Structures are given as C-alpha cells and as structure tokens.
C-alpha cells in the first residue's frame, strides 16, 4: 500500500511547492495512472516515493516502510521492494540485455547461482528471450523499454513506478507497453503506478486516474479518462 498524508514538497531554493498537501492511497494490486500538465509534480511524487528527494511536510507510508522514519542506511533495502521504469530506459550501454538484468541482482548481493535462471524467466515473460545477447543499441525503442521493464521486475518488486514509459515510443508500441504493465499488474499482482500523457490509451484502459495540477491533487477517478472534465461529464 502507498499512503500519502498531506504531503508537501518544496525543492531547495524553489519558491512554490512542487507538490502541495497531497493525500491519496493506492492499495496493493491496484493499477493507477498519474496524469497532469507538465510541471504539475508527477515526477516529484515518484521521487518522494523512491526517497530520492526528502519530503517537506506530511507523511508517506509504502508497504511496511514509514519514509519519515526510514534511516538513511535502510533506504537501499526499501528500494529493493520497488521497480522503477524511466522514459529513457536507462539501460547500461556496455552490457548485453542479459547482463543488464543480471546486474540489478548482482548489486544487491544475490547469489549468482540464482541469477541466470531468473534472467531467462523474466526475459521469457516479456518475450525477449531471443534478444538476450544483444546490446541496447541493437534493439528498437520498444524492445529497449521492454528490457527496462524486465529489469524492474527482476527483484520481484511489490510496486512498479513508471514515469512516462511511452514518452519515446510511437503510438503502437505505447499501447503494447501499457498493456504489458496491465499484464504485470494482473498476473503478478504487482501494484503499478504509471505517469503518462497518452490520452487515448488512458481513455481506453479504464483504470483509476489521479489528476495533478500545479502540485495539487485535483481529481481521483476509479475508471477515469485522461481529461478530468470528461470524467466528470461521463459520470
């Protein structure tokens, strides 16, 4: 569960709040879109969840972790329960697909004995097993994003955070990618939060949508559409 209680965030030196008095909950196994205009605070919310940024006010609870009380030393262990996907994939260019996946298990000290099987398992799951030995630059954008999603799945996260995962993809691939998140949510029971600007896809997927505007939560619809006005009008 992700529980935000009156969370505000002001960046150092900034005049206004990037996130202001945000309160919302996401239950285990939910799928949520986070939408809003540029600069409305979507990425900031993710950075608060990953504890890349400290919050200014309020409290955040993620699963059993109270982020206000989480000690600096414990942060890495908390992050192992999250899977993060970026718009720009962030694959390591000098490593093959398989090495990129193995890397994230290696750096949290998992016995190499378990790693190879897990790499194969996850690559099969995202249907990329045949590209195992390729380097990132030998893959299409959609394939790279699938690898980066596979990487986020490696450590069996309880929550997946995807910040504009389709931002660099054409519409057809965007649909596939969002469908992949839906499948992860459905089959692996992983909680999924996706920030996106894909109006059409949000509209057609009928998921919960949280609307942000200038740092404030201005709407939260169970089977929402991209435009908050549209959502209101429909129901």
């Amino acid at each position, binding site marked *: 569960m992700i529980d935000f209680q009156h969370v505000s965030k002001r960046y150092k030196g900034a005049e206004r709040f990037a996130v202001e008095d945000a309160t919302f909950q996401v239950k285990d196994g939910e799928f949520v879109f986070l939408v809003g205009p540029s600069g409305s605070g979507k990425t900031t919310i993710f950075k608060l969840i*990953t504890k*890349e940024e400290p919050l200014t006010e309020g409290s955040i609870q993620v699963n059993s972790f109270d982020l206000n009380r989480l000690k600096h*030393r414990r942060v*890495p*262990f*908390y*992050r*192992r329960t*999250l899977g*993060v996907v970026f718009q720009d994939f*962030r694959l*390591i*260019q000098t490593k093959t697909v398989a090495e990129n996946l193995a*890397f*994230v298990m*290696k*750096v*949290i*000290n998992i016995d190499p004995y378990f790693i190879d099987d897990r790499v194969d398992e996850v690559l099969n799951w995202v249907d990329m097993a045949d590209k195992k030995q390729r380097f990132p630059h030998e893959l299409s954008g959609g394939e790279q994003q699938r690898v980066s999603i596979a*990487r986020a799945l*490696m*450590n069996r996260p309880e929550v997946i955070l995807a910040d504009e995962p389709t931002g660099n993809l054409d519409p057809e691939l965007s649909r596939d990618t969002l469908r992949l998140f839906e499948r992860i949510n459905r089959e692996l029971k992983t909680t999924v939060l996706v920030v996106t600007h894909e109006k059409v896809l949000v509209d057609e997927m009928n998921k919960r949508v949280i609307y942000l505007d200038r740092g404030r939560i201005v709407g939260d619809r169970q089977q929402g559409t991209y435009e908050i006005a549209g959502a209101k009008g429909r129901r």
Partner: protein
Amino acid sequence: MTIYYIREGFRGIRRHLLMFLGSVAVITACLTLTGSFALLAENLDYNIGQLIDENEFVAYLEDGMDEDEAAGMESDILAVDNVRDAIYISSEQAMENYLERLEESDRLFADLPEDLLPARYTVYVENIDRLEETSQQVAALDGVDHVTVSLSVAEGFSSTRKVVVTVAALLLAALLAASLLVIFNTTRLAMQGRMEEIAVMKIVGATNGFVRGPFVVEGAVMGLVSGGLACALERGFYEVFQQIIESYQLADLFYVIPFRQVRTIVFAVYLGGGLFIGIFGSVAAIRRLLKV
C-alpha cells in the same frame, strides 16, 4: 562480494589505464620526494647527534701554574653554570696524548720538553645550545688563559637540518594535498564514466558500500602501486646518495645510515601512506554522490 569489488576495481583501472598511470606517477613522485627529504633529515639528525656527543670545549690554563693550583681550578670551573663535568689534563699528560696520536715516522718531536703544552681542562656542558656562552664564562675565570670551541661543523649541520626539516614538512603538507587531489580527481573522472551505472545501482537498492567498493579498490590499488614504486625508487636514490658521499670522500665526516636500517620503516610508510591516500581520496570523491 569482495571479489566483485576487486574485479570491478581492476576493470575500472583497465578502462582508463592512462589516467591511472598518470596518477600513479604523480603520487609516486610525491611520496618519493617527501620520503627522501625525511630520510635526509634523519641522516643529518644522526650525524648531528654524533657531533653533539663530542661537543665539549678545552679550557687552557695560564702558564706557570703549579700542579696543585691547576688541580684546584676544577671546583671553579664546575661552579660555572651549565658545566656538567671538567676533566683535568696535566702538561705531561697532554704531551703523551699528543705523541700517541703521531705516526711512528713523526717521532722527531719525541724529545720536546715535557711542559711545552699547557695544562688544560676538557669541559663538558649540560645544555649544548649554551656551549658558546658557557665557554666564555669559563674563559673569564682567573687562571684560564683561553678556550677553544669547535662548534662550526655541528652548527653547519644544524642549520642545514633546520632547512631540510622545514622543506620536508612543507613538502609533506603540499604533496599530501596534491596526492589526495590527484586521487580525488581520478575517482571523479572514473565515476563520471559510470554515472548511468551508478544511478541504476542506487535505484535498485545497492548499498552505499557496494557502490563505493570498486572505486575504493581502484584508489587503494593506485596508492599501493605508487607506494611500491616509491619503495623501489627510494632504494635506488639512497644508493646513489650513499655513493656520492663516498666518492667525495665525505664518509668520515658524514655517516650515511645503511638502507637496511631504515628499509622497514620506509617501506611501511610508503605503502601505508599510499594506501591511506588512495582510500581516503576515493572515499572523499564519492561521498557527495552517495547522499541521495
């Protein structure tokens, strides 16, 4: 885990071998320079210590003093401040000592009158820094004709030593800073090439120690290699120094401590110093990065 650090550390070194070698060269130079000055100071110290042990002065008594009067001077001399001891040497004794020192062939002086050399006292002082002053006080005593003090060599060494020690201390500070800076920058550059990797590591939950590990290994290896090279260089330099002293026939005047005697400490300081610089410099370089 440790194996991972070591493998990644060496992989990093291979990736920017030239930068690594450049840094090693600078650190080696810094270590060797500092160490050489410290060794020079140590040698000077040793030699000054030797000279100071011999530091004493001779107070010559006025002519025509009889034996009893001369022996009686002892209490007057001992009463002077800073005098530790005074040994009486009679006229005959002085001649005997003198003759003893002559080569067989120079025995033509053998039949000099026994009382040619004046009776004297060898005076030892408490505090060597006041030798000059004390000798003046003794010279002023009734019955003392004059004194001779052989300070010049010791003073020469002493002032050289002051310069050398000052230079060594300044070098130590400056070159330590330079070495740390070199490691710091090298680590920073190495990091820059791996930012994306580090970002991924952090976001998937690698501990700070884990992110730091390979860089610390890299820094430590850099420091140790530099220390090792400095050891080898120092050994060579020291030999050259020794040969120079010998070739100028200065060996009587200046005793060079054998390298054997300083080897352990030199090697320990170079390797330990290198290791310290390497670890400290690289840890400092990645500190800020690990804040997030």
